[in-house]
């Protein structure tokens, strides 16, 4: 009789526990999602120094904290974009969980309506205003740091000191030994200023920039991507290039004779960000958000951005020692004043036109 009573009590306790758990789960669906951890998160990234910094600064610490593996997918940023778009449009699960993207590309995806709103991330509070995407409601993406398209040069080719003006690119002495990005990215606004225009000319009057490009074409620049610049500098094939400071710094850290400067016309400053595609299973979206949230924490921002050598959106983080006072590492308002910043919505609207003209000049 006693045993039967014990069993009855146990069953009642079990039933009560189960009911309480079910009620808790219904009341807090995030608890369910949090417990249902995916085996891995796939994060699209750039390779080389970029991917290594993300791995060491964000992915590995995130795995240590949550037990979720993070796989970096090095698909080209422009190539992953249509894959995500078609997956979202067709109701398929997107190929990645988090996209590390340029803010311009991310804005395009946000305009297309394929990004998850990140407004509820707890670590957004207290970030620098730079973190907020320009011209968009809420946080369809979050900017994570700023970067500068510097004037990188081979010190050996400039024995009298660094080039002081972008017009040095036109010097016949450097014919065939200069390089730009193959879509003009990072240089279009600078070309306008170097070509005699002003910042106010952008985007309505780009003609000074196009004229600068026409003159530049005669000096036979090489056009390429991040990895090309490193190869070209390494092989001694170029003396001067417009490239992101991260590439120049990585090349220098690998023993390549590369320095950089911000010429008198300034350099273009831009931002990269993180976003999550729509259409992920609920638990995977939850953990993808947790990843982005972690990337915005002080710990992650400090390590990630120090490795990249870029100013983070988390305030109060000191620059790496080798970049203290470096003009490519803007932290104060006056630092940014020396640089040229074009808002992402303006870039989104005008970049296709600029690219078409850039192509017309250099492919002619």
């Amino acid at each position, binding site marked *: 009789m006693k045993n039967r009573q014990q069993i009855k009590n146990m069953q009642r306790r079990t039933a009560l526990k189960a009911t309480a758990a079910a009620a808790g789960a219904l009341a807090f669906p995030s608890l369910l999602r949090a417990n249902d951890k995916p085996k891995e998160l796939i994060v699209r990234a750039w390779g080389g120094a970029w991917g290594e910094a993300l791995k060491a600064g964000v992915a590995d610490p995130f795995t240590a904290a949550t037990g979720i593996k993070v796989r970096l997918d090095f698909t080209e940023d422009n190539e992953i974009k249509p894959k995500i778009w078609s997956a979202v449009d067709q109701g398929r699960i997107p190929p990645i969980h988090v996209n590390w993207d340029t803010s311009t590309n991310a804005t395009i995806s946000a305009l297309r309506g394929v990004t998850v709103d990140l407004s509820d991330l707890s670590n957004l509070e207290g970030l620098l205003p730079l973190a907020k995407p320009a011209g968009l409601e809420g946080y369809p993406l979050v900017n994570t740091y700023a970067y500068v398209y510097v004037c990188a040069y081979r010190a050996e080719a400039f024995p009298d000191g660094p080039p002081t003006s972008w017009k040095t690119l036109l010097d016949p002495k450097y014919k065939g030994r200069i390089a730009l990005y193959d879509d003009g990215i990072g240089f279009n606004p600078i070309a306008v200023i170097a070509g005699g225009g002003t910042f106010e000319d952008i985007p309505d009057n780009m003609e000074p920039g196009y004229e600068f490009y026409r003159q530049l074409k005669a000096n036979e620049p090489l056009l390429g991507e991040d990895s090309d610049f490193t190869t070209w500098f390494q092989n001694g094939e170029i003396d001067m290039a417009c490239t992101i400071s991260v590439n120049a710094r990585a090349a220098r850290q690998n023993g390549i004779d590369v320095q950089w400067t911000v010429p008198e016309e300034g350099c273009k400053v831009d931002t990269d960000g993180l976003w999550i595609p729509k259409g992920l299973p609920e638990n995977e979206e939850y953990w993808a958000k947790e990843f982005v949230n972690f990337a915005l924490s002080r710990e992650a921002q400090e390590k990630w951005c120090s490795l990249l050598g870029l100013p983070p959106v988390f305030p109060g983080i000191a620059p790496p020692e080798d970049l203290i006072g470096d003009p490519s590492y803007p932290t104060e308002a006056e630092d940014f004043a020396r640089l040229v910043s074009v808002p992402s919505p303006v870039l989104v609207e005008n970049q296709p036109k600029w690219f078409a003209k850039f*192509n017309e000049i250099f492919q002619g």
Partner: protein
Amino acid sequence: MPKRTLDRLPLRWTLLDKLEAIARFLWPARLRGATGWLFITPALLLVGVLLIGLGYMIEYSLHELDLSTYRLKDAYTLDNYVFLVEQPVYLRVLLRTLLAATLVTAMTLFLAFPYAYLMVRTPSSALRKFLLVSLFLPFFIGQVVRAYGWLIILGKEGIINTVLLKMGLPALDLIYNYGAVVFGLVQYMLPFAVLLIVPAITAIGEDIELAAESLGANWLRAFWHVVLPMARPGLVGAGVVVFTLSMTDFAMPEILGGGTTDFIASAIYDSFFQLSNSGLGAALSIVLVTLGSILVAIVFRLTGAGTLSIRQ
């Protein structure tokens, strides 16, 4: 014949009988006339899928991009084609591509024919093996790897320029120009051309050449009037393959061109991926497919489809 043998046929025979019975059940005798169609069904399905894709491309090409949503507008328009015509850069890139494809085809055939001839006619098996290995070794290495190999050899601080500088001569600009792209493509296309020409030369009996020579023609005349015309199927086939592959190539211009000698495939890539304008990319693709088809049709019209041993 002993009875035992009739009762107990070998297992293989029994199996074959059963398989034949199954085949008769699945494909009755009355359908035998359609057996040929059955065999080409997979190929037809494949072509069908490609045609469906082409249909989608034509559809996309008739919609303009809406920059406020980065989606194609619903309205049908020819604006993408008008844009291609109005932008002289696309015509220049197209002409550059066609010129390169023509040059690559001519040079490749010029180099491939003697190579294939020697490989077929040489009495030395060692030389034949050497030529085969030399042909296949680079064939197994991907196009991108080969292009990077040329960067090492032809680069401004590459092997050739290093030697030139050591000899006191000025360094040469051997890469990142049009010539480098054409050179890289010729090297890439050579094995394709040789492999297509070899069967044509093999089909020409050596005795025919001997007969021509016994009638008084020297080797050159026999080659010109007998071998070359008889090898026409191989030459035309190789020419069409090399031309179309060169015209649609992407990697060589990207790697060896230095960014300023794009081919039409690069422009298509840029439209789809850099500009996110699938309408414009589709329009460019349709132009390329149409142009390629017209050129191949002209070749067949001039040389006759019979050159590929197709019954007319």
